[in-house]
């Protein structure tokens, strides 16, 4: 407290600060995501117990410790519960270190909405701390706050200071410890300004692209993946205005931070403050719930530890040897084995020969005999009958496990679920009394909406017979395979299918320790795309082993790929247009349409001619009903029908040759059925004056040097060509010369 006073008085030296504003904080008591489903259907995330104390208590205790005087608690989902909790706790009392005001909005779907709503309330007067109700921290704010104020004085465009923390050096632990995504930031080493931010780090992209202007403006910068975002920010009041101005900003990082950095329209600056020794973490998913619980038990978050921080009305837990926390009124049978780093809440009874290790057990739980609990989080008033085996699970309030039930790692049992006798709940299952909402609601930003719709009547669910429930509810939520837990008579609850992440990713976010194979797989994946990329274009070494500079090669390959894609796409478009033309669209319109296609795809006239011809031939195939005898006739018909169109697009020799080549290609690849009638069709084309003799002769001479395999069609047309050149004897010596040239070159070869 004294520390904070010091910081305050230093800040208020500034004349502008004479009208001193109390330090304010905005605490978002809603995380606007679904990661804690199904538990959050019934209770807001901030009230979930973390080592027997609701998460929000940790956050509020930290805010109090750093000298915040006014807290605006924004609640959305389950606002009533949050308000009730705050009202009953000591935070709501006048002797708390700060005043707490709850702001309730039922329409907010995201952090952006929340901040816009708060802006509308007009309560923020100065810099404020923005934090979510699931953040555990024990860091000091003084230095960063002072730095922020100093920067603000120098540059009014400073809007935010983000706290970041050096994470574990190894990318693997770093990402698997808290189940976070990797974040890449670029930070100016001098000013600590944030220059680039990329979360949800897309592994498929192998390279990060920094804008050239970044380097033009900054002689040096640090590109870092070894930082964790603490999700605590010091914001200027402008942040709210920016949110108001940009009504499409939803997510604090993905939209706001990126928007400010990348759009660069507003010239606003974000700075970072790196903390090193203190503890900060956010309970973002089950995995981090597990990790942070352990951290708290191991006292990394001191003074926010179970024997100090406790606001409940029952007996407080005390720390004993080996990191065991135990309330004084716990009843343990003498044969119970309690392993290290375990917390057992007040009023809990554990029967003979049971063993508990690495777990947190809440208050008023009844645990029978021969139960083994390892790495579990058992909340309040849970009944576990004899012989149950639980490992790495979360068991919410009021759950009842009947004799011999087994929870495999990663199981989540939401409130009041019952597991029948000798039932094994498979790994990673999530079981709730409430059925899973249908899929379309599970858009991430929409948690609030469906939390409300999700809480539907069915308090009496347990009284309905299983078959009925299945019938009633499963049919109404048909897309989900919400099956009632089979479990004899006493099992109650729906098994949820995992919705957002899919089963493959489940292990990453689960409470269960990550299996070794998965770790390896994950690691391999992380570096394997690199491996596969080693042959890729970006490495600059192509298969032939030649070296192309990186930038060049990317450009080249990109454009190349685009180009190829475009031609085939263009052909497809032309084909579709042509089909429409057959359906009776006027010829001029078709010409117009194809011409505009040609321009928009930027293909040459010749390619266009080829594409049109291809469409004609394809239409012939359709017309012939794939019978070979009809094919020639159908082709002739098709050519006759589209003569106008063809002659419109085939105007010179080059285009004619392209058409012949195209036809040849088609005969070899796509439409092999034309191969036998190649020469006849060619003859037809000549007869219909689509193709001139010049083109045919040119084609032939072009083919003269080709491989034998390429000359199949030349040979086939030999008779025709002969007659043809004979007939056109008069066309001039030049043609003959060309022919002669071709022949001699053949001989030479």
């Amino acid at each position: 407290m004294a520390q904070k006073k010091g910081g305050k008085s230093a800040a208020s030296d500034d004349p502008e600060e004479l009208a001193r504003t109390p330090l304010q904080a905005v605490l978002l008591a809603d995380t606007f995501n679904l990661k804690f489903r199904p538990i959050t259907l019934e209770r807001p995330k901030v009230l979930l117990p973390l080592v027997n104390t609701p998460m929000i208590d940790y956050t509020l205790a930290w805010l109090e410790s750093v000298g915040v005087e006014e807290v605006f608690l924004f609640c959305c989902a389950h606002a009533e519960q949050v308000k009730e909790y705050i009202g009953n706790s000591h935070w709501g009392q006048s002797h708390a270190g700060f005043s707490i005001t709850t702001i309730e909005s039922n329409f907010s779907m995201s952090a952006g909405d929340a901040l816009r709503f708060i802006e509308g309330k007009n309560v923020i007067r100065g810099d404020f701390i923005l934090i979510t109700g699931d953040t555990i921290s024990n860091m000091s704010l003084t230095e960063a706050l002072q730095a922020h104020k100093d920067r603000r004085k120098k540059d009014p465009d400073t809007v935010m200071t983000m706290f970041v923390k050096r994470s574990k050096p190894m990318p693997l632990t770093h990402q698997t410890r808290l189940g976070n995504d990797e974040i890449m930031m670029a930070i100016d080493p001098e000013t600590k300004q944030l220059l680039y931010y990329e979360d949800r780090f897309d592994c498929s992209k192998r390279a990060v692209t920094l804008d050239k202007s970044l380097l033009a403006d900054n002689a040096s910068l640090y590109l870092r993946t070894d930082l964790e975002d603490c999700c605590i920010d010091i914001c200027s009041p402008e942040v709210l205005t920016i949110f108001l101005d940009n009504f499409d900003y939803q997510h604090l990082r993905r939209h706001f931070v990126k928007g400010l950095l990348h759009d660069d329209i507003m010239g606003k600056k974000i700075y970072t403050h790196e903390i090193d020794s203190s503890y900060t973490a956010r309970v973002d998913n089950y995995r981090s719930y597990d990790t942070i619980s352990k951290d708290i038990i191991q006292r990394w978050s001191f003074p926010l530890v179970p024997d100090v921080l406790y606001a409940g009305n029952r007996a407080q837990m005390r720390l004993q040897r080996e990191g065991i926390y135990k309330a004084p009124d716990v009843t343990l049978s003498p044969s119970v084995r309690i392993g290290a780093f375990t917390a057992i809440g007040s009023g809990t009874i554990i029967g003979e020969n049971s063993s508990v290790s690495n777990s947190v057990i809440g208050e008023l739980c009844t645990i029978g005999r021969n139960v083994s609990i390892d790495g579990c989080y058992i909340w309040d008033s849970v009944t576990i009958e004899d012989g149950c085996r639980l490992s790495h699970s979360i068991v919410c309030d009021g759950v009842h496990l009947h004799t011999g039930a087994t929870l495999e790692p990663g199981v989540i049992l939401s409130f009041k679920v019952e597991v029948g006798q000798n039932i094994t709940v498979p790994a990673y299952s999530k079981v709730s009394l409430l059925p899973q909402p249908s899929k379309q609601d599970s858009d991430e930003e929409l948690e609030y909406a469906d939390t409300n719709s999700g809480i539907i009547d069915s308090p009496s669910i347990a009284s309905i017979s299983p078959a009925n429930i299945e019938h009633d509810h499963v049919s109404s939520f048909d897309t989900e395979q919400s099956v009632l837990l089979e479990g004899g008579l006493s099992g109650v609850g729906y098994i949820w299918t995992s919705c957002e992440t899919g089963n493959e990713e489940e292990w990453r976010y689960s409470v269960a320790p990550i299996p070794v194979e998965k770790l390896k797989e994950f690691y391999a994946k992380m570096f394997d795309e690199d491996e596969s990329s080693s042959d890729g274009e970006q490495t600059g070494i192509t298969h032939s082993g030649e070296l192309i500079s990186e930038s060049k090669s990317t450009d080249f390959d990109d454009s190349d790929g685009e180009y190829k894609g475009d031609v085939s796409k263009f052909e497809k478009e032309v084909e579709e247009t042509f089909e429409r033309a057959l359906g009776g669209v006027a010829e001029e319109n078709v010409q117009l349409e194809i011409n505009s296609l040609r321009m928009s795809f930027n293909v040459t006239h010749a390619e266009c001619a080829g594409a049109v011809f291809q469409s004609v031939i394809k239409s012939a195939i359709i017309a012939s009903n794939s019978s070979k005898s009809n094919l020639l006739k159908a082709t002739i018909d098709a050519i006759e029908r589209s003569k106008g169109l063809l002659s419109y697009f085939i105007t010179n020799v080059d285009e004619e040759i392209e058409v012949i080549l195209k036809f040849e290609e088609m005969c070899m690849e796509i439409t092999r059925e034309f191969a036998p009638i190649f020469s006849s069709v060619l003859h037809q084309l000549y007869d219909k004056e689509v193709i001139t003799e010049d083109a045919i002769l040119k084609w032939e001479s072009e083919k003269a040097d080709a491989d034998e395999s390429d000359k199949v069609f030349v040979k086939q047309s030999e008779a025709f060509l002969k007659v043809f050149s004979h007939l056109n004897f008069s066309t001039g010596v030049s043609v003959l010369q060309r022919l002669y040239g071709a022949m001699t070159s053949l001989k030479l070869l």
Partner: protein
Amino acid sequence: MDPPMDFQVVVLAGGTSDKLSPLVSKELPKALLPVANKPLLSYPLELLEASNLKNIIVVVEGDEAATQVESWLSVAYMDRLNVEVVKTPGDVGTVGAIRAVAPFLISTDILIVSGDLVSDISPGAIAATHRRHGAAVTALFCPAPVSGGADSSTSGGKDKAKKPSRCNIVGLDPTRQFLLHVVSGAKVEKDIHIQKRIVRAVGQMEIRSDFMDAHVYAFKRTVLLDVLEKENLYSIKQDVLPYLVRTQLRSEISAKKENSADESSNGATKELPSEDININSAVPSNQNLRWLSQHREIAPSSYQEIHISDCDMNKSRLAKKTHKCCIYLSGKTQYCARLNSVQAFGDINRDMLGEASRITGYTFSAQNNVVHPTVVQGAKTTAGGQCIIAEGTILGDKCSVKRSVIGRHCRIGSNVKIVNSIVMNHITIEDNCTIQGSVISSNVQIQERASLKDCQVGAGYVITAGSEYKSEPLTKR
């Protein structure tokens, strides 16, 4: 004689660079261009000699240039250095030059030094760093000159119009020992792409755009020869170095090289079995990784992890190879410049007179100048501070020389002012001339009352009496 370190040095002396026209010509190749009255090539050579790197191959472009350089070398360094001159046709690029000398390369590591380097950074230190890390390549980078220095002026006016042009973009690890990313020269205009993997591996990558590639590289010979086999390479700076840096976490060289190493160890090199592993560029990845893990402080484990996961997964693919690309960063107080433009020529000469005078090897007098004892000065002639006047030059009366270099056997008339200029050898300047900020090549005749400001005068040019020139290059037609 055997140098103490098994290093061969290749000095790329260039030929008659267009960039330096009109200063260089067929008669005066770039290597022999006088900088503070010493041939340019003598600077890198002296530097190498000081580090006891005496096994030197000088590559010169063009026959005539090669002959001249060779004859100069045979006189100047006859008994001091073991120098060979190899000539290449013009316009083959630095890679072409190295290809030309490839058959002569026999030592474990090769140091490639640009012949236009004027510096006091010890190449021995670079060589030692290279050895210590066992790197595939070590490159020297130095802080780029702040005010439009040598390198930025080469990129031409186009860049200058835009934002301050950056010479190179380099990515360093937090210890600043490893080179993780490099984009050089003209490519900097684009957005930069950085491989995520390499950032991931170190956790934190420092990206600098204010370092200059000083064109000194130490290569493992095996790596160098291997890279040279690839096609489409032109420049070491723009092609070879970026390639090696880019592939350092999955070295293709190593994979290849190991095969050849196997072959060679089966065959001829059996008599030196232990050496073979050290010489080989492809340290098997586990060795290299262990090594890396000791030195990459930030993410040691990740390197091991690659290795571990590779072994564990027992995939059929080749174990990942890495090679190390190191960087030697010069200190801020050290001088480092490359003479690759007319602008740089002027700058370097000026620096030789001022801040970097230690490099010249001259002893400056109390007036802070170097006037050879044989110089004849007329009455009331003053040679101010920061001047070098070489032997046999005769100055008339009432001359004033400030911040300038005057070469050998010049005849300078009376009442001539020479300020901030470089006057090479055998030049005649008649009375009442004013020369400011200019470079006068050898054998130029400047007739009386001529006035030159910021001009470059090519060899043998005659400036007529009374003429005035401003900011012009003047060459003999």
